[in-house]
């Protein structure tokens, strides 16, 4: 009974803290702008199966991609066992999901094998991170705290896997010593058992009990650490893929507020017709975190900081300041900084700082070629270029600020309908003396 009460209490605390964190994050979404509508449920479901569960984009780097995919698929099986542990803990039962019979055996066996596989892979990831000098784990946005966060997350996962393996060994060892039935199959535990040959049933029971508690408490800790970590993607990557912008990568979202103004300009008659004025005159483009869309912010929370975007960015690999990963990390940091104050003092809260300039420089924004390599590469379908162009929109339309050459281009397009200073009278000059050989 005491165990049950302690468990229920810890679970309640865990869920309480988690709810607080998530509620805080949700309150920040209130300040963001609308994005694409979420329809095409089936298309999104298929995309989620393909990209999230099939891990297709992570396989764009095949070797390390396979390593990640194995960890992901393993987590899916192990999650089943974690749910069972919560049921067991709350209702003082043991192996409650054994009612699933052969399916249960299969899932438990998979979880047991994957615990070992994941532990080995996590060690590989840690060694690679610390000693591998992987270029995409470096960059101006990668602070010592970013590396600590990554290493801490990996260490927590490693401890989770070790405690899970201990738990299975304890359970199998105890059951065999006591001659009771083993629910589920545990091939790795069975293999490792001889190493603990001299242990008594009581010792096995202790190992089982202690590692059960260690494992579940680590899960509770991990769950509450994640929202403050780059590893939040454990929760958000699947929904983020489901919420992907489904349009072709080349398509920028239309600014309807501009369409209204341009139509009025082109057809003054329409001024007298009923074109509804927007209730609040909103800023054109993105200057600060709250000008971004909810999807941009969701993207920033889902970002794993893996740096695949940055590693394929033509600007970044030729030494420019732009790093698509930094854009996402900066949006998240800025919202974290400004969000609580907006909750307290309202959306108009002003701390004389902004996402653009205090976090992201104009130099970064103007270095983008809108080639979409970053968006194509992102394993969780983050879209960086739309946010970058939105910041350009702010600079150009609110501040009339752009590199000098681009201002000339704007003038040329406006005055002679081409980015260069040529007259439209010359548009057919290429036709001159055009002949076809007919033999």
């Amino acid at each position, binding site marked *: 009974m005491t165990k049950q009460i302690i468990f229920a209490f810890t679970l309640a605390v865990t869920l309480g803290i988690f709810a607080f964190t998530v509620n805080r994050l949700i309150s920040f979404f209130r300040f963001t702008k609308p994005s694409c509508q979420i329809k095409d449920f089936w298309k999104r479901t298929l995309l989620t199966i393909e990209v999230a569960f099939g891990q297709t984009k992570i396989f764009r780097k095949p070797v390390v991609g396979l390593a990640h995919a194995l960890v992901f698929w393993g987590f899916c099986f192990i999650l089943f066992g974690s749910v069972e542990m919560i049921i067991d803990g709350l209702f003082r039962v043991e192996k409650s999901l054994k009612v699933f019979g052969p399916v249960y055996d299969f899932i438990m066996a998979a979880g047991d094998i994957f615990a070992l596989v994941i532990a080995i892979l996590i060690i590989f990831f840690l060694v690679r991170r610390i000693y591998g000098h992987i270029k995409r784990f470096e960059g101006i946005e990668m602070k010592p705290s970013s590396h600590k966060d990554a290493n801490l997350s990996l260490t927590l996962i490693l401890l989770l896997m070790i405690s899970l393996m201990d738990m299975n060994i304890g359970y199998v060892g105890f059951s065999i010593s006591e001659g009771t039935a083993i629910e589920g199959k545990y091939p790795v535990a069975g293999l490792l058992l001889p190493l603990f040959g001299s242990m008594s049933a009581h010792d096995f029971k202790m190992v089982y009990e202690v590692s059960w508690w260690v494992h579940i408490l680590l899960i509770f800790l991990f769950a509450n650490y994640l929202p403050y970590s780059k590893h939040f993607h454990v929760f958000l990557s699947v929904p983020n893929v489901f919420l992907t912008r489904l349009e*072709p990568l080349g398509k920028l979202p239309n600014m309807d507020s501009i369409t209204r103004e341009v139509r009025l300009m082109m057809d003054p008659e329409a001024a007298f017709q009923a074109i509804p004025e927007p209730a609040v005159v909103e800023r054109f*483009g993105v200057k600060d975190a709250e000008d971004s869309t909810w999807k941009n912010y969701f993207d920033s929370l889902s970002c794993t900081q893996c740096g695949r975007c940055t590693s394929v960015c033509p600007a970044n690999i030729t030494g420019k300041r732009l790093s698509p990963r930094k854009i996402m990390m900066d949006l998240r940091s800025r919202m974290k900084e400004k969000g609580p104050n907006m909750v307290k003092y309202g959306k108009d809260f002003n701390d004389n700082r902004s996402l653009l300039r205090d976090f992201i420089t104009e130099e970064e924004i103007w270095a983008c070629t*809108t080639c979409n390599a970053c968006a194509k590469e992102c394993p969780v379908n983050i879209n960086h270029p739309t946010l970058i162009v939105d910041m350009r929109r702010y600079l150009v339309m609110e501040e009339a600020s752009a590199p000098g050459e681009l201002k000339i281009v704007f003038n040329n397009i406006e005055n002679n309908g081409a980015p260069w200073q040529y007259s439209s009278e010359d548009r057919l000059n290429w036709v001159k003396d*055009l002949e076809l050989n007919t033999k």
Partner: protein
Amino acid sequence: MNTLKIEIPVMSELVARGEKPEYLFWVGCAGAFDDRYRKVVRAFVKVMVHSKVNFAVLGKEETCTGDPARRAGNEMLYQMQALQVIETLKQYDVKKIITICPHCYNIFKNEYPDLGGVYEVLNYLQLLNMLIENGRLNVKPEMFKNTAVTYHDPCYLGRANDIYDEPRAILKKLSDNVIEMERNKSFALCCGAGGAQMFKEAEKGDEEIFIKRTEQALKTGAKIIATACPFCMTMLTDGLKYKNREEDIKNLDIVELMAQSLEL
């Protein structure tokens, strides 16, 4: 050899005569004004006339689609251009558009619909591929049969619109030696000109994107770098000049290879 003078049908004249072409061929600003790229447009028109494609151009009525303005953040200017173009196309009841520039293709196909301009849009490579498949264009492979060719994917055909197969299908008809760069298709490196970069100096960095991409193309050992975008052409041709390779390596558009092999 006999030659036939090509008269380019202009939309306003056709309509005045009561005729209506099947396609509007959108030439684009680079096609109209860039000396090098004019040759590409001429080659494409030759192939279209050769294959009896029924098209017309807007001529002096054509204007910028607004793409560079939009990508540079000037949504106001973009929409002014776009609504003006849509108005012109409405006047001629245009339903099908052929583009040669991938940036024009992307904007017609993906972005004008938001402003009420809905068309069937074909990129010239899709048209060429269609003509080949329909048997309206018979490729003569002799000229480039043994020439090593590599293809640079333009971002606005590739990643932006998933057009990877048509250019390769056409090239493979022309040459038996099409070599892929290490980074190809959706992995392709940008030439450095997209997003209005074409019109400005690059930001401070260690090297130029176009040189990096040229180096990747040179690494294949190909004698011809085939491109399919006016901006990519400018960038890679500059890259070849920078590398002092413009004598032995040629940067040609896919349709130029086609027109040359057909001796048009």
